[in-house]
């Protein structure tokens, strides 16, 4: 799992890189917000750890930008801060931060937060897979929606192009998984087929008797 750490202080960044690698993650680093956004787009890390105060682009701006252009794929974001003021925490949360980590970085706390992030991202992946499966299934099962005009006599239906067609053709076009084979239901057998059969045999008997 890729983890991108962002901090303008090289000492902190080197420490983070080492710890992230030690805890079994692939560490990526950026020394400012602009580089962070570039690396984020290229590498698509699942977890981001960013400092709050940085020159040019502050942490909350980095977070807001990432949240804005990564609407579908979630990233777990940890904000590094020496700020513990309630208003600052709220501002961080509103920008899209999931978790805070106080400076100086405590290795045990970092490890614990990375585990939480990993767990959330694995759950996210699992949910994403399920949503994709459901979407695929939904695409396969095209629902017949709305009112469908059907002829009271011949049972043809009028499609979206206002053309009348046999109902089996219509359903075959709108439902990929269905194919029709011809058959006769018991009711129709009694009312339609049986009289025809009887008439046929009666005719044959009559022909035989005249011969």
């Amino acid at each position: 799992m890729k983890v991108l750490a962002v901090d303008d202080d090289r000492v902190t960044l080197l420490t983070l890189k080492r710890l992230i690698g030690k805890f079994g993650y692939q560490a990526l680093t950026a020394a400012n917000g602009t580089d962070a956004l570039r690396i984020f787009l290229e590498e698509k890390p699942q977890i981001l750890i960013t400092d709050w105060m940085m020159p040019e682009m502050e942490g909350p701006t980095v977070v807001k930008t990432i949240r804005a252009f990564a609407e579908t794929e979630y990233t777990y974001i940890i904000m590094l801060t020496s700020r513990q003021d309630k208003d600052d925490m709220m501002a961080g949360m509103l920008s899209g931060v999931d978790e805070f980590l106080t400076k100086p970085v405590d290795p045990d706390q970092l490890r614990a937060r990375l585990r939480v992030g990993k767990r959330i991202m694995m759950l996210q992946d699992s949910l994403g897979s399920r949503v994709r499966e459901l979407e695929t299934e939904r695409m396969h099962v095209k629902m017949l929606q709305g009112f469908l005009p059907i002829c009271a006599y011949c049972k043809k239906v009028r499609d979206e192009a206002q053309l009348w067609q046999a109902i089996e053709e219509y359903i075959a076009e709108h439902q990929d998984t269905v194919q029709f084979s011809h058959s006769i239901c018991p009711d129709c057998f009694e009312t339609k087929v049986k009289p025809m059969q009887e008439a046929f045999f009666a005719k044959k008997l009559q022909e035989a008797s005249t011969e």
Partner: protein
Amino acid sequence: MQQASSHISRARLDEIGMGDPEFTIELIDMMLEDGQKRVEEMQQALAEHRSTDVGRIAHSLKGACLNMGALDLASLCASIDESARKLNATLDSSVVRQVAEEFCAVSKELVQIKSELAA
């Protein structure tokens, strides 16, 4: 290794060094290089009355100091950082001077620790 120290918390440095002398030395070298640069930048910004820049540099140096266990230096930087956030901040040049002096002491101690680790 657990030498008493007045400028560096060895417990913190050892924790962040993760028992790896080479890595600890790498951190020390980076701190010496970046710290010196930051102190000079801070003095320059103060001389040019750029209080926002002084605060920004102090904030960044504070992070590195906390990371390395230079707690007194971190406190001085925090003081400057806090003052610089105030509207129409007028910074106390004596605090910046104290930062430079404390950084000298921190540097000496880090060099000493480095030589111990390298031995």
